[in-house]
């Protein structure tokens, strides 16, 4: 089995439009949650979110290409450019066939779908743009990455709600580890700020009116985010042979299903996925220094996740640093696992632990070290990143510096 390393990383996030910007803001504990500005909010109860602000598509795409690109595909293409440029790889010289493109997305082209339905049903349009279908299909973002970079190996999109990106990265990890491919371009993308979508989220009654306060007492729910993070995975021997810069090594991936409830999480299922990840990585619990939590800021998730961490880590749980970067970049749904793994990679690389922002008061039921409000300087060697999705789909990745 090959060892698998990350040789390229690209991010478009509410915290910034490249890795350097995002990392700097993670380090300051800056929260990008604020009033929603990309759509009108009259008639919405939820008027806050973590948006990618000042994103000018014309700065990145010519008109002809832009006509095909939903907002989520725009994000992932920009992120893929940064990641692939950093890797230094070119796919058109034969490497393409030995490269997989596996991207996670929770819903895909929602902005396009929303606009198109509005035209048909509300405006009574007799026809809509001919490229509507190829634009909104959930696999489109992934398609454009293969097209732009000339990648001709296996390619598909993975969907599992809030765990989509971790699952995508995990599958890509498996394929490089097994030698099916030498390289994988993977990650996740999501862009769902539309009036109708927010109405849907409000109806679930889990949206925070003020901000996202994971693990804090009196937390009041989640805040939507958006964005994309793309990474290049490579067979370690190959990366070393060509002198590539190695950002981190992916050492394990664990999965499980709760088989329980369509929205409520299960501590048993979460613990099972974390254990599976530790076993896959051949790690003892004492070796893990930091967990990037799923930490959505809902009463349900944060308590359940805390219990699961206690169950898996035992006495070592109290020595762990656990933080939720959703407090800073919001819940980006199908992109969240990728944004969060990216944050974890940069944290290990640059020697800091991103904080849980907006933390006011400790909740007696959430009693771990959540690194409240301020980033901490620390050289962490091994970290995990959790995603626990609606429907009970748990996916956990482990990386080593």
């Amino acid at each position: 089995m090959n060892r698998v390393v990350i040789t390229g990383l690209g991010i478009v996030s509410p915290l910034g439009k490249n890795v350097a910007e995002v990392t700097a803001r993670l380090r300051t504990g800056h929260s990008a949650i604020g009033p929603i500005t990309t759509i009108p909010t009259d008639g919405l109860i939820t008027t806050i979110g973590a948006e990618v602000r000042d994103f000018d598509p014309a700065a990145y795409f010519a008109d002809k290409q832009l006509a095909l690109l939903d907002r989520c595909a725009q994000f992932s293409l920009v992120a893929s450019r940064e990641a692939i440029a950093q890797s230094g790889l070119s796919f058109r010289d034969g490497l393409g066939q030995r490269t997989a493109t596996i991207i996670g997305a929770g819903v895909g082209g929602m902005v396009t779908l929303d606009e198109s339905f509005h035209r048909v049903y509300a405006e009574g349009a007799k026809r809509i743009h001919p490229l509507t279908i190829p634009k909104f299909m959930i696999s489109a973002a992934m398609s454009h990455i293969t097209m732009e970079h000339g990648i001709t190996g296996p390619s598909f999109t993975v969907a599992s709600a809030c765990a989509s990106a971790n699952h995508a990265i995990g599958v890509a990890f498996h394929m490089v580890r097994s030698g099916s491919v030498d390289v994988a371009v993977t990650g996740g993308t999501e862009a769902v700020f539309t009036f109708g979508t927010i109405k849907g989220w409000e109806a679930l009654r889990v949206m925070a009116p003020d901000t996202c306060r994971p693990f804090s007492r009196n937390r009041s729910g989640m805040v939507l985010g958006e964005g994309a993070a793309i990474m290049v995975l490579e067979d370690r021997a190959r990366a070393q042979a060509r002198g590539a810069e190695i950002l981190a090594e992916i050492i394990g991936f664990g999965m499980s299903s709760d088989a329980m409830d369509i929205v409520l999480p299960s501590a048993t299922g979460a613990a099972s996925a974390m254990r599976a990840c530790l076993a896959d990585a051949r790690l003892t619990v004492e070796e893990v220094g930091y967990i990037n939590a799923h930490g959505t800021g809902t009463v349900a998730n944060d308590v359940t996740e805390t219990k699961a961490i206690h169950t898996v880590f035992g006495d070592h749980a109290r020595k762990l640093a656990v933080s939720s970067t959703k407090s800073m970049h919001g819940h980006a749904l199908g992109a969240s696992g990728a944004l969060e793994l990216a944050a974890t990679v940069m944290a290990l690389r640059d020697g800091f632990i991103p904080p849980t922002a907006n933390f006011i008061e400790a909740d007696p039921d959430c009693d771990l070290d959540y690194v409240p409000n301020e980033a901490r300087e620390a050289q962490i060697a091994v970290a995990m990143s959790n995603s626990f999705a609606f429907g009970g789909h748990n996916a956990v990745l482990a990386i080593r510096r």
Partner: protein
Amino acid sequence: MDTENDIIDIVAKQAKADRATLKRDTHLSELDLQSIDIIELIFAIEDKFDISVPYNANDLNSAGISFETIGNLVDAVERLTAEQHAQKAG
């Protein structure tokens, strides 16, 4: 009272409970209601009375409104209806 009867109807339907057993002081926690049922209950109430109920699943005392008993629901609905329909008229 109409409001009380309507609410008991809605709760009975969602909880699949015998309507005759439901009273003002019945605790919702005594009924077979999962968290999804509570959300659907609130949705049915909003639809029926054309009001917006500030219920947040993370906070059992949303905006000072308690959702523990059927009586609490009835009082909340009457208050919200008065507030919100007066706003519309005014």
